């Protein structure tokens, strides 16, 4: 019997209404499952069939593939109004079939919520957006109050946390900030050199790199790197604390989540991001200098002299002010999404993604606002 191929053997009684179906061979999942349509094709049922008796005397080894085929067969015979007789099958098969049928078929509603009319959807979205805006404002208020308590020395947080976050945000991001900024400096110098060479004004590459890095690229690139690196990790940390009931525990210990969790992160970022920005600007200028000296034959001294002659110091100050704003934006996006996180692992992932996306968008928006404001002010 073993190793025999599975087979369905039909025998039709003389009056052509009683049919016996004998199952042969081994039924194993490796051979695939029989669908209702395959069964229909193999059995080719005639309209005058009244009952179908399935017998298993020649059945070899069997597993779920047999059960599946029998359930399909049941569906087929129900459809054609044929009485299905399974009592001649092995006991185990019958019991399993009965077990699967013993639970009441409950109608679990799987239908989707009805499509709402267009205006209602727009209204709901709008209200949701306003709610989010409310939450952001509330968070900003809580953060301001917490900062006031910090200044008055009443805030409750662990000073050790600030040190750890600073260590992670600062020296931890050193290498990546150095690499990216150096390359940005090189790119700026190259792009500038190609254009400026046409006028024989290669020397102004130095001004270009200094101005672009100091005013814009240093602060923006560092902020974007930190949003992806540190902002994301803040959202993930706080989000998984939410999942783990740690934030509940903090609140019931009488500690404020904004003071205990957000304040140290804000402090660390406010200190580290401007420092990293200074470092980034320096690396960018270095990148420009390398291109200038190797490709344009501008000496290092000339490069620096030209830069200090043409790029006023306040451009660098603008970059630093921006980096302070970006620090607030990054921490807020990370912490808001972390605190709003649902209570599952998927929710943590979603919070992290949202934190990064929102902080990058917010960085660019804040940057353009500042640029417009400065233009109006004539700076």
């Amino acid at each position, binding site marked *: 019997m073993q190793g025999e191929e599975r087979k369905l053997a039909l025998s039709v009684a003389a009056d052509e209404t009683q049919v016996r179906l004998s199952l042969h061979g081994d039924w194993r999942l490796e051979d695939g499952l029989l669908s209702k349509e395959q069964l229909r094709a193999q059995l080719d049922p005639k309209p005058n069939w009244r009952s179908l008796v399935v017998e298993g005397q020649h059945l070899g080894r069997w597993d779920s593939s047999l059960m599946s085929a029998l359930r399909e067969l049941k569906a087929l015979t129900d459809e054609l109004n044929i009485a299905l007789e399974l009592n001649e099958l092995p006991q185990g098969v019958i019991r399993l079939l009965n077990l699967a049928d013993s639970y009441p078929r409950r109608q679990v509603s799987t239908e989707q919520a009805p499509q709402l009319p267009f205006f209602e959807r727009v209204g709901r979205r709008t209200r949701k957006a306003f709610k989010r805006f409310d939450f952001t404002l509330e968070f900003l208020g809580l953060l301001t109050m917490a900062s006031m308590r910090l200044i008055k020395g009443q805030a*409750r947080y*662990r000073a050790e946390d600030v040190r750890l976050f600073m260590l992670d945000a600062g020296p931890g991001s050193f290498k990546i900030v150095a690499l990216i900024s150096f390359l940005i400096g090189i790119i700026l110098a190259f792009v500038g050199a190609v254009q400026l060479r046409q006028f024989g004004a290669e020397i102004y590459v130095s001004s270009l790199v200094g101005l672009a890095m100091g005013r814009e690229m240093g602060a923006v690139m560092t902020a974007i790197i930190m949003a992806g690196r540190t902002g994301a990790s803040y959202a993930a940390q706080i989000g998984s604390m939410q999942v*783990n*009931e740690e934030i509940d*525990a903090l609140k*019931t*210990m*009488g*500690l404020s989540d904004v003071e205990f969790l957000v304040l140290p992160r804000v402090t660390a970022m406010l200190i580290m991001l401007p420092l990293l920005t200074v470092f980034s600007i320096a690396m960018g200028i270095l990148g420009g200098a390398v291109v200038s000296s190797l490709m344009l034959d501008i000496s290092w001294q000339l490069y620096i002299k030209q830069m200090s002659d043409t790029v006023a110091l306040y451009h660098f100050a603008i970059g630093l002010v921006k980096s302070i704003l970006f620090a607030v934006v990054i921490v807020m996006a990370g912490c808001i999404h972390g605190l709003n996180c649902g209570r599952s692992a998927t929710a943590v992932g979603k919070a992290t993604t949202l934190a990064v996306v929102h902080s990058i968008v917010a960085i660019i928006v804040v940057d353009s606002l500042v640029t417009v404001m400065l233009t109006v002010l004539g700076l």
Partner: protein
Amino acid sequence: MTKSTHIEVNDLTMAYGSMVVQRDLSFAIQRGDIFVIMGGSGCGKSTLMKHLIGLNRPAKGEVLFSGQSLWQVSAEQQRELLRRFGITYQAGALLSSLTLGENVALPLQQFTQLSAAEIDDLVRYKLALVGLEPYQHFMPSEISGGMRKRASLARAIALDPEVLFFDEPSAGLDPVSARLLDDLILELRDSLGATVVIVTHELASIFAIGNNSVFLDPETKTQIATGAPKELLAHCDDAKIQRFLTRGERTSPKETTTP
């Protein structure tokens, strides 16, 4: 210990948005009680505890601690009240970035004027109470689930609370450890003079230590009975309570009356 009402729940309705979890809950917890919140899975036991400890705001009704509502006082007073609670969460809820010792030390550092050395002393004492002194410098991820629960208890008792809350303390523990935890809860109640509120459906614990309880029903969405679990088993006629307290063995309450 004189009996006086410690926690009072008046006409409480709990809801998540428009979905009502339980309504019209009213019961009183006496000082020194070991109060059990019981009921089948999904009936709102943990939600009730979240309302008692001020994490969720009542949709209707009030929860009073020695006559004070958590929601009618200033944020500062609310935190003051919360500090008198010790809470042990289902999975421990220890801060995962701190060691066990630092977790227990946290409330002490934040709310007392003790020196670092004194705090260290206290931390080791609290950890010793739950049998975890040797693990002071372990991270929560490095110890077993049962140990995390006990460490969470050590943190809960750090400030000698008036009320101790436990969310499913013996879930996931073997019978012997569960029994030891019950003994520990009794011991702490007696020595601290605290009131204990436990969410559980562990029958052995309910009968061993509970002296007052409320039974929540998921179908009618309200409490069916309140009182000592042993009394309920003996005298309550409600079929659901009998089924629950006897693991479904007694379906018709009239057949049995245990002395």
